[in-house]
């Protein structure tokens, strides 16, 4: 793929991935065929800051986990009063990392 496009993509999305994954993503994008560009751009990347805001406001209902696509954990959180209220607080600190991990998973599916 064209390195200018890849660098633009990396600049726009650097905060949406774990820093240790940025190198791998850049490399994979550079090696990918030009036809993958459209697919890479349409990956549903979730914003970690939005996830954090959702988590703080209504994380107790598991909405933050639903938002990042962790449906199973979302249901578990919802049906247990946010993990007895404790998990809801723990998730304030975990949700941004979890969002970035999910984004990486989504990218990997496009860039196999």
């Amino acid at each position, binding site marked *: 793929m064209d390195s200018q496009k890849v660098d633009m993509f990396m600049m726009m999305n650097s905060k949406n991935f774990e820093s240790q994954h940025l190198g791998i993503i850049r490399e994979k994008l550079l090696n990918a065929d030009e036809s993958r560009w459209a697919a890479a751009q349409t990956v549903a990347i979730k914003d970690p800051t939005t996830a954090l805001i959702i988590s703080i406001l209504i994380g107790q209902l598991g909405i933050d986990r639903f938002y990042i696509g962790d449906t*199973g954990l979302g249901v578990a959180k919802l049906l247990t009063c946010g993990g007895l*209220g404790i998990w809801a607080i723990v998730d304030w600190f975990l949700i941004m990392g979890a969002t970035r991990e999910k984004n990486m998973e989504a990218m990997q599916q496009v860039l196999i």
Partner: protein
Amino acid sequence: MTRNRLYTLLGIACLAGYSWLLLVYFFRERMGAFTLCPIKALSGYPCPSCGSTRGVLSIARGDFASAIHLNPVSYIVAATMLILPIWLIHDAIRKSHSLHRAYIGGSAWLGKKQNLIIFAVLILINWIWNILKQH
């Protein structure tokens, strides 16, 4: 979510759940109106799953009707708490991935738009009922 991470998480959740049940079972009188639910503590209104601790304890006593009245969600919680530890131990001994596969399959199924909407509507109805019966 990798297999081992999911199993650790579910194991901790099971332990915490059973500890909480035992705590409430033995110290109910002394706990009074104490609640771990932040929504109930802050607003006074119950959350969609408030009442499920008492519900699960009712089911354990065989009082199935009052569990429905306290919160129907307690049936899901009770079934999960019964099945999950057995399934976890089975997978740990056999080194199997069956629970992980079931989790991923179930999440994907529920993640579909129409299923998620139906689930959300059911939870909302239950929540409204939960609020109405306590006021």
